């Protein structure tokens, strides 16, 4: 079965085939043999053909996989080739500059107005979480195109707060 893996801004063709009790996996043009077993609620054990065993903490949300191994975390999206083409188009069309909530919380103050020019690092709004006020800063220079939140509003992690164009 063929997929596209999106990782670190690149796209790699991936193929998975059953092979004995495990799998043969192609990443780009390299083939590897591996098997994967469930070792706990979020824990997986990946064994490579040379016997190397890797413990992975795995979490998935839709196609997005978050995998922690050896003290680092890898974010991979596994999509079917058709969906990958659609996603590419979407990425090209979006203007970027979305500022998302890094954590769930409550908007205490909004520091900018629509149409305002901001510099990279400027405070956009204050988000309160866990008894602390956190300033959300502009990731780039630009103009505040749209404000999606108002003071007092509760937001989930990842919610779009402001769009800077």
């Amino acid at each position, binding site marked *: *079965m063929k*997929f596209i*893996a999106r*990782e*670190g801004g690149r796209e*790699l063709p*991936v193929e*998975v085939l059953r092979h004995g009790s495990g*799998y043969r*996996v192609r*990443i780009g043009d*390299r083939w*590897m043999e*591996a098997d*994967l077993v469930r070792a*706990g*609620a*979020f*824990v*997986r054990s*990946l064994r*490579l053909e040379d016997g190397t065993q*890797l413990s*992975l*903490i*795995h*979490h*998935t*949300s*839709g*196609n997005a*996989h978050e*995998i*922690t*191994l*050896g*003290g*680092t*975390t*890898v974010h*991979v999206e*596994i*999509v*079917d080739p058709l*969906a990958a083409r659609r996603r590419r188009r979407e990425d090209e069309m979006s203007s970027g500059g979305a500022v998302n909530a*890094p*954590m*769930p*919380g409550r908007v205490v103050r909004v520091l900018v107005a629509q149409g305002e020019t901001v510099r990279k690092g400027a405070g956009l709004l204050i988000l309160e*979480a*866990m*008894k*602390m006020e*956190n300033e959300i800063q502009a990731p780039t220079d630009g103009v505040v195109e749209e404000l999606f939140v108002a003071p007092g509003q509760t937001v989930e*992690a990842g919610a779009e707060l402001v769009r800077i164009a």
Partner: protein
Amino acid sequence: MKVLIANRGEIAVRVIRACRELGYPTVAVYSEPDRSALHVISADEAMPVGPAPSRESYLRIDRILDPAQKTGAGAIHPGYGFLAENAEFARACRDAGIVFIGHSPEPIDAMGSKTESRRRMQAAGVPVVPGLTEAVKSFDEIEAFAREAGFPIMIKASAGGGGKGLRFVERAEDLRSAFERVSSEAESFFSDGAVYAEKFITRPRHIEVQVVGDQHGNIVHVGERECTLQRRHQKVVEECPSPVVDAQLREQLGAMAVRAAAAVNYYSTGTIECLMGPDRQFYFLEMNTRLQVEHPVTELVWGVDLVKEQLRIAQGEKLSFRQEDLAPNGHAIECRVYAEDPARKFAPSPGLIRYIELPQGPGIRNDNGVYAGYTVPVFYDPMLSKLIAHGNSRDEAIARMRRALTEYRVEGIMTTIPFFTLIMNDPEFCAADFDTGFIDRLVAETDFTRAAAGEEQVDAAIAAAAILAFEESQNVQLPVDADSRWRTAARAEALR
């Protein structure tokens, strides 16, 4: 005696443990988002106290007393924070015929006010930071004080706060302009031009002394703790004993602390906080009339159980030890593990804990408040647990802490564990050469970004993700953009 614990998180679990050891049934209370929190699971019974915001749940005296009466709890332990130092709550318990596991309301009142506690301590012969107790009206008074106490001094607006309206003065020639600026800031910021002055303790250490007293007038001290390492005025690493306190100084500090506690007829556990200059002169800062977060380091070194002692004292029993029974043994260090991301300026990192592995082995204690599968809520303090290491020497305690930190794994949320590893490996920390500015300097010069994954790790992760995606596609035909199995199941359920 059934005990209700008016708190949440690790401290509620800690109190439940003490109750169990004494054979007391326990009642946990919970706000709505806390219904599956560890303290609720740990207790014998659990009752709701309201919605998420603390002021509508854990801080509501009536909502705490109500389940106490319903469950027939004869006593309430407040933990720390929330209602622990609220004299009104202690009084309400007394009025309701419920034993408040703490002190009588009176010392709380007395120690709650900084000026009142300072006055009482001075009267009891406890050294306080030299300073003017009253606001001054003229420059001459400040000048006279500076001459007597010696520079550096701080000039502060009486009504000040939040870092506004204060000046640090090192030299006599800067005194007048500093006085004028603070006076005018005080006037414009706080509409009150009153200012006062205080001696500034250079490179201070924050030392606190544990005291325990019973209702029969017995008060002992249980040594000191080193609490100098702070971030945002919040302690992050504590030690017992302090590396700069020797037996002789410990006796002086202890005697001072016992005097201070006696001055307010204190019983239960309490802490006398002091500042200590490089000259080892110490000054009373404030008294905390509660169990401290960092009490485990004292427990490990001094071989006492402070929470069980509190439970006994509250029922009128005498202290189970005398001063001469107590002696320190070895060294203990505590790290407060927070759900914060060091790589993002310690921003809160609440969320689902997917995996947690608590360190174990020789000399390790976990006062833990979370579990795998638990979602750390956004509404409360981000402290998850406390990791405490005990050894024969400070070096052994540090080595054990370092080892324990490598065993400690939390996935799903970010924690301050990497930050503690950094501290435990810092030469200045290991040499016990630090002051209250240590953490700020360390944080400023450190990049906490996690190491980027190597090529082999990325390949392994992609392979695993692809295999999982493959298995998923073989097992169940899920919609391509399904966000969770739960939601998918719920949708399927709704269509039946």
